[in-house]
């Protein structure tokens, strides 16, 4: 583990991971049109349908209109899904199908450079989607005030966290089908009990406690207040949890990819 840590630190310091990030960004740019449409279109539909449709039944939630509650949650859940899918399906394609990583590893880049570059890239896509959702939510009147801009670095961190976790899954995956386990057993439950669509306080005690162990819950606790225009509590704790859920998977992913690629 110490070796992995050294490799990761060396990668951070060397900045070579940026070449991996840049490669992915350039590919994204080619298809930016549909990608951006998706970034805006999907949250717009969700917010309209669920926010107004479901909202008219639900009424207020935790003292705010449902669409406000929902918009602030979707910023977080979309950071999670965007980074996770990038870290699974897209990264797997680059690793196994296109053998892009193999070609990168014949240059002066290390596995840590590749893994970290991919993780930051996944996080970047989370930020793209976060920006789009915030804009849509602003237009729909679901954003509190200008402090909402502060969520972007938090969305980046959330994206980094989930990208790193999914890269661990990718590192041990033998096919695309394998990702269904992770999606079904980890992503979807988190989406449902992480406080995105409804608050946790009326859930059974056991679920509330379990939810406190999940990174998404802490991302919601940080991001929702800023979107609706209040101040988050226990900031250090939430950051610590997200930080741990980023660093440990990152190191694990470097280690597993090293092993997989033959190191």
């Amino acid at each position, binding site marked *: 583990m110490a070796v992995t840590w050294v490799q990761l630190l060396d990668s951070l310091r060397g900045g070579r991971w940026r070449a991996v990030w840049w490669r992915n960004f350039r590919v994204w740019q080619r298809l930016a049109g549909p990608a951006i449409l998706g970034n805006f279109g999907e949250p717009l539909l969700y917010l309209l349908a669920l926010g107004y449709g479901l909202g008219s039944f639900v009424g207020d939630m935790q003292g705010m209109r449902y669409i406000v509650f929902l918009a602030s949650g979707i910023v977080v859940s979309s950071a999670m899904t965007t980074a996770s899918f990038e870290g699974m399906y897209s990264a797997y394609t680059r690793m196994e199908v*296109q053998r*892009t990583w193999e070609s990168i590893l*014949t240059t*002066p*880049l290390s596995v840590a450079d590749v893994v970290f570059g991919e993780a930051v890239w996944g996080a970047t896509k989370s930020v793209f989607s976060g920006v789009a959702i915030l804009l849509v939510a602003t237009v729909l009147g679901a954003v509190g005030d200008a402090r909402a801009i502060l969520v972007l670095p938090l969305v980046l961190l959330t994206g980094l966290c989930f990208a790193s976790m999914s890269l661990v899954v990718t590192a041990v995956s033998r096919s695309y089908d394998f990702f269904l386990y992770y999606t079904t057993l980890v992503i979807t439950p988190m989406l449902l009990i992480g406080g995105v669509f409804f608050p946790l306080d009326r859930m059974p005690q056991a679920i509330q406690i379990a939810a406190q162990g999940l990174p998404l819950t802490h991302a919601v606790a940080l991001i929702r207040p800023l979107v609706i225009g209040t101040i988050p509590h226990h900031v250090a704790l939430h950051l610590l949890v997200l930080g741990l859920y980023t660093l440990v998977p990152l190191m694990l992913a470097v280690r597993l990819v090293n092993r997989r690629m033959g190191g």
Partner: protein
Amino acid sequence: MSDDQVQVIDARLLSKHYGRYTAVDAVDVKIRRGEFWGLLGPNGAGKTTFLRMITGAIAPSSGSLRVLEYPVPAQARPMRRRIGVVPQLDNLDPDFSVIENLRTYAGYFGLSGPDLDTHIEGLLEFAALESKRDARISALSGGMQRRLSLVRALVNQPDLLILDEPTTGLDPQARQLMWQRLRELKSKGITVVLTTHYMEEAQRLCDRITIMDHGRLLDSASPSELIKRHIEPHVVEVYGDDAEAWHLGVGAGLADRSEQVGETWLYYALDEEPLVDALKASHGISYLHRPANLEDVFVKLTGRELREA
């Protein structure tokens, strides 16, 4: 130590095990600067595994390895700044055009700017791909993809070039062009390591050839020296319906060594005259008289049975 005695590759007792299987078995190799070295061996001999240890892609199980004076794999990352690699299977980036492939790959070396652009123009010309600069990889022929892989390995102006079967699957014209380019690189003093299954290619290009099988190095010398060392200078091939009868009646006694391969009898001789005279005298027997070549050596050292790899 004079300049050309510097070892570009210095492998000592290098081994790679996969579980109980030994892919590379205690290999000793020294490659001098400027040398064009060919590594030949049947499928599964361990060539690719050996090359991947050199580039630091996989870690040796035991032994020591220095490449361009860097200890590998410990210092493989900085070492790779100075080598170019053409892998056995192309891994060009399908999301990019030809020129973007070169630029992106150069980016991994931290290269950019006008100097790089000039260099890349030169590489496109070298690969005869100027007209394809904006084409997607999927729109290139196999030969074009292989040449792009070659020039991609040259973006960082490497001192050592590692080519794993660069011409496999190419038509004769594409292969000729590749050979020409490789000779040009050699004349510029780049050290080249090449694997191939084409004996003619190895014979034409390589200063030194090593034959490998079952993870071990069998012999190593210049192509002509290898042939001299292992095979009588003359080979006569006799084939056709009457070959067997002729062999039993006449041929067997006239050569230093003979063997049957399928329908053909091969005769190896220091002096070919008695054989050829006898064949001329026996009308209707089909035969071919040729000098010994590298393939004869290869087959003698590695055997004739088919590999399953």
